[in-house]
């Protein structure tokens, strides 16, 4: 019997991935709900049923694979960001900065009012700024949307993730060096770390296209080379202890601006990309525990609602100045709802410095679960209401 339980434990991950995939396909066909919502739900339920099978440390294979999956998505994400546009239409960046700052302020205020320690409040506020790039990109690709809501959501997410990352690192730095250091030191440390990651990604984003051009095989081999670049970068970032998130995002950004094109067939990095993505979304929910989710449900729901209202309101405020209708501005804000993968991986990465926020903070666990399942649904609805997806009767 001991053997049997060992086998069951070992089979936890593959079974969860298969179940998630099946649930995603079947329910997507019935209800048209985004597949990734169901992946998260399956991951969460499986982890509650068989907690032993899903325990993972910061350096476990699964965590590494999840980081790789996230890296691939972030590369593709960065590839769709047009820096030139941000220069020409400054209102995009302005609304990104404003919605991030407002979210930070409101979430901090609410958690402060509930007697949370200031540093915990700061960390929570910094994480709440971010929208999950993985959730957004997967929903956009799944629903094949195109239009202003789609484009703006992508650019706003890039902005709020980089900001969230920066603030989070500053707060962590402050926390870690609280006894010996100071705020300027924490800021500069955080800047150096992010700068290093960006440099790494930028370098590779210049190198790989240059190599491809030398090989003269632009159209055919691009995807494979970029996938290997992401692998290299994720592992290197871990070894050097810089942010793999920013590194892979910059890699995609730099590769785009070096003018080598991905063809559309390589969306999501093909079948292996799909597989890794399922693992990623299952993984993101396995770290959550039922008791904590329940305990933090009330505060979590309040924070989710506040974050949603602030993001929607602020983005809408700048809509007309940015060249779109109020309605599309509102829907852009709604589409910014997802938040989970980014947060989970960031926390996983900072566990080693003794910050176990998910474990300590029940509200964050509740927020993460709620937004992992509900967030993609909101993004998808926003794209449909904005009429940026193909008509269903025509498909």
């Amino acid at each position, binding site marked *: 019997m001991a053997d049997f339980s060992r086998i069951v434990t070992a089979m936890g991950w593959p079974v969860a991935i298969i179940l998630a995939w099946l649930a995603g396909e079947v329910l997507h066909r019935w209800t048209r709900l985004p597949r990734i919502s169901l992946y998260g739900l399956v991951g969460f339920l499986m982890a509650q049923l068989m907690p032993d099978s899903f325990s993972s440390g910061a350096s476990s294979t699964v965590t590494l694979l999840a980081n790789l999956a996230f890296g691939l998505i972030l590369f593709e994400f960065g590839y769709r960001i*047009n820096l030139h546009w941000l220069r020409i239409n400054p209102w995009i960046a302005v609304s990104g900065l404003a919605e991030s700052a407002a979210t930070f302020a409101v979430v901090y205020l609410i958690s402060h009012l509930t007697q949370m320690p200031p540093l915990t409040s700061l960390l929570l506020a910094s994480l709440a700024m971010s929208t999950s790039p993985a959730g957004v990109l997967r929903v956009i690709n799944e629903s094949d949307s195109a239009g202003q809501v789609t484009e703006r959501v992508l650019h706003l997410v890039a902005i709020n993730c980089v900001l969230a990352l920066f603030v989070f690192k500053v707060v962590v730095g402050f926390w870690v060096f609280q006894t010996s250091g100071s705020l300027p030191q924490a800021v500069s440390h955080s800047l150096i770390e992010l700068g290093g990651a960006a440099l790494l990604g930028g370098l590779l984003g210049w190198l790989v296209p240059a190599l491809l051009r030398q090989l003269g095989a632009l159209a055919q081999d691009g995807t494979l080379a970029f996938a290997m670049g992401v692998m290299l970068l994720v592992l290197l970032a871990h070894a050097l202890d810089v942010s793999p998130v920013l590194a892979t995002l910059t890699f995609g950004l730099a590769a785009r601006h070096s003018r080598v094109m991905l063809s559309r067939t390589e969306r999501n990095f093909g079948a292996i990309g799909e597989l890794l993505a399922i693992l990623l979304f299952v993984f993101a929910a396995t770290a959550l525990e039922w008791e904590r989710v329940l305990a933090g449900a009330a505060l979590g729901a309040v924070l989710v609602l506040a974050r949603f209202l602030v993001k929607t309101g602020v983005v809408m405020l700048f809509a007309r100045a940015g060249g779109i209708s109020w309605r599309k501005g509102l829907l852009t804000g709604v589409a910014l709802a997802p938040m989970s993968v980014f947060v989970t991986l960031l926390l996983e990465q900072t566990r080693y410095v003794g910050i176990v926020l998910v474990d300590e903070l029940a509200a964050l666990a509740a927020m993460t679960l709620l937004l992992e399942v509900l967030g993609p649904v909101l993004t998808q609805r926003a794209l449909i209401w904005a009429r940026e997806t193909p008509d269903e009767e025509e498909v």
Partner: protein
Amino acid sequence: MPLPPFKSSTPLSMGVELELQLVSLSDYDLTASSPDLLHLLGRKPFPGNVTPEITESMIEINSDVQHQHDALLVQLELVRDTLVQAGERLNIGICGGGTHPFQKWTERRIYAKPRFKEVSALYGYLAKQFTIFGQHVHIGCASGDDALYLLHALSRYVPHFIALSSSSPFVQANDTLFNSARLNSVFAFPMSGRAPFLLDWASFERDYFAKMEHTGVINSMKDFYWDIRPKPEYGTIELRVCDTPLTVARAAALASYLQALCAYLLERREAAPLEDDYLVYNYNRFQACRFGLDGTLVHPQTYESLSLREDILTTLRRMAPYGAALGGTAGLEHLVAVTHEGSDAHYLRQQFARSGSAEGMVAAAIQRFRTG
């Protein structure tokens, strides 16, 4: 709907319509963004007119009624600048070209407007394959009889316009070897081709249009996809064979060439058009689509074999005094240069060779549209 009476308009006035591509700057594929673009453009007065087209990745612009090449060009440039500016605010690339080189027709989205939805229901995949981009040139006519005379007298010159405007060498990611592959898509429609050989408006209305309408096959002139068709409500004939060029300068030049030709033909010094002119029509049209300026024509009345490039140059020389009288010399000179430097199709193939990808070709087209 009976045919409206032919409204008399100022002879040789002209107007240009251009169908343009909306392109994503991330992957250079067509992107369904005309609703967003039209929303933004709707906020300020537009220096011309802009309308949605059948799929959401195209828009159509048109000039006002113009009389001279230079004024037409100024207006088209103004329209272009307004469009490019709006496109930049929304992260949309805008370009000319008769086809998008690698779009998949299955991915196109039909614009939400009843007529487009009806066309889509009737023609099925043809409607989505109709994601092609043409330039239409209107020339004002004093009467319906003049319009029909010009329509048939121009038939011999149709290959000139195909070759000079050709900008659709690639379809579905492959080089078709055609210079204007776009016209092959038009040919799939049952009501395409040439107008029936009738030279007076009364008999066109009575002996053709009324009968066709009675059959229930057509409702209005809009249902005919002819190479040249009369437009009675404007009092014009409309030349529809041109690919949208990569630049508005070429669009204006093509219009002024047509204007000069009409001025010349209206003097009726050339042999009158005959039904038999159409014996060689489809062959000549094919030569122009396939080989562009390097094609060979058969003269419809002498049956002489002619190099298309030579025939264009000869005609442009003959049109010089008409062009000068109408203020269109610059336009004609632009086209002389095209016969030397090659058409837009040639330019696009060069860009493909240089950048190694169809995406690079679209990027070059976007760049050319902004400045040319």
